[in-house]
């Protein structure tokens, strides 16, 4: 395999890895703070793509300038975030105090609702909104052309990772969230309205999932069932990286993205087997994941 091909495989691997990362951090936020395993997160990612498609399609047909199409990405994600304000009080609030298997079952049902609703509204055919992708053209890397838009995605995912790290570790709100994640009763006794804090956190996690779907839309398509595959791999990323770990999500998503890309190039039939082999080895050797924390007596 020539070095040019290896570089392109790595770039493709990272392209996929960062989509997993954007879904996994949402999952990690929800599990880390509310102890909810949200399978419907894939559906929210897909909803981000579909809503952004609707916005971009309308804007493109109306002949709006290119910056309006860029604006469709955060607006689409924000609309998905608004969905959070409906499903959180209706469904998730009831799951916070229940065991994880209840949230798995309930959110699996919600995932099916999302998938069928999107199919009912947008139809079963893949929907393309590649105006931004085409507008940005290609770059030549070691003699091979590579879409410039993909670099927007790399930069965006890194900015999200950095932004979240600053938010959780350097801001007051982030520290309040981390404290509440550890002991919500104590947090309430120190004046935190945990119910509102959870809704805000849920909005953040859903917004990031929507943003993931929205930003990937110009480079891929919006299609029925698009939330299912990444959600399965995102759970693998979450376990390998360590539950609730931002750093773990980035490292594990990169690992899986690269393994998958090289798997497709070298042994397509073993692509997923290798990913899940890594998962099994992690569970045997280091059950709390690469960057997962041990539970302490203080944690409640």
């Amino acid at each position: 395999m020539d070095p040019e091909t290896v570089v392109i495989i790595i770039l493709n691997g990272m392209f996929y890895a960062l989509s997993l990362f954007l879904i996994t951090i949402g999952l990690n936020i929800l599990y880390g703070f509310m102890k909810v395993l949200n399978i419907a997160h894939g559906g929210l990612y897909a909803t981000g793509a579909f809503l952004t498609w609707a916005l971009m399609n309308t804007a493109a047909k109306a002949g709006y300038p290119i910056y309006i199409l860029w604006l469709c990405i955060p607006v689409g994600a924000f609309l998905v975030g608004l969905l959070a304000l409906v499903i959180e009080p209706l469904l998730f609030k009831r799951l916070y105090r229940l065991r994880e298997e209840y949230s798995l079952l309930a959110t699996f049902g919600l995932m099916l609702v999302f998938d069928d609703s999107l199919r009912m509204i947008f139809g079963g055919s893949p929907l393309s909104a590649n105006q931004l992708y085409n507008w940005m053209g290609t770059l030549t890397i070691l003699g091979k052309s590579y879409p410039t838009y993909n670099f927007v995605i790399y930069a965006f995912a890194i900015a999200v990772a950095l932004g979240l790290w600053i938010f959780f570790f350097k801001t007051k709100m982030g520290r309040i969230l981390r404290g509440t994640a550890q002991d919500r009763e104590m947090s309430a006794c120190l004046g935190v309205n945990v119910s509102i804090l959870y809704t805000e956190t849920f909005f953040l996690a859903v917004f990031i999932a929507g943003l993931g779907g929205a930003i990937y839309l110009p480079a891929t398509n919006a299609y029925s069932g698009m939330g299912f595959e990444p959600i399965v791999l995102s759970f693998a990323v979450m376990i390998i990286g360590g539950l609730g770990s931002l750093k773990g999500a980035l490292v594990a998503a990169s690992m899986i993205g690269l393994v998958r890309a090289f798997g497709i190039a070298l042994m397509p039939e073993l692509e997923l087997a290798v990913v899940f082999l890594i998962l099994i080895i992690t569970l045997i050797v280091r059950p709390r994941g690469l960057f997962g924390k041990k539970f302490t007596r203080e944690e409640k």
Partner: protein
Amino acid sequence: MALLELERVNTFIGSVQVLRDISINVDKGEIVCLVGRNGAGKTSTIKTIMGLLRPKSGTIRFKDEDITDLPPYRRARLGIGLAPDYRGIFTDLTVEENLQFPKWVIKRNRNQSGSNIEKEVHAIFPELDRLRKREGLVLSGGEGKMVATARALMLNPELLLLDEPLEGLAPIVLVRFAERIKKIREALGIAILLAESNIAHASRVADRIYVVERGEIVYGGSVEDVSRDEQLNRLVRGF
């Protein structure tokens, strides 16, 4: 008028009744101690006052306001601070972050003014300066109790609830911590309600005590009276 008043409070955990017709009161600036054996109902009383357990019947009044149905965060904002028996230190955060936590929350809600409570707390617990950068996870038992108490004080409360603050402390640390509890009252003029299973410990700090047994108040009065009464003494000691 009492600062805190519980009137015929009955609390259940599941189907088990943990508090039976509890009626107690705490006046401004008073140190009151709930004394009883493990499982007698001291922590349940503290939790009911804080709103972590909801009473099935009875009334809780704080500053003449009925707070029986208020959630814990509203009670905290009204001026009730809690240092629980398990300390509740956020192990992921540093001591400094633990201490700032209530300030951030209250600032965020713009409910109370800052005042110089921080200075006062550091004057009562000067060791906090040394521990500032340390992670909550690596604190010793005594340090954890100190940080939990200091953090509750950062709420600028009018009533401080301390659940088993002296339990498990080495004798010398215990004497020092008991002095600090009295110092809190002197410096801040707030009322303190503490739960303690050891009558000798309670006598170091309390103005008045209530003896709790099987979820009921069986005695309320001075520490001296209990110390003199062999039957009450035996009840608290358990032998």
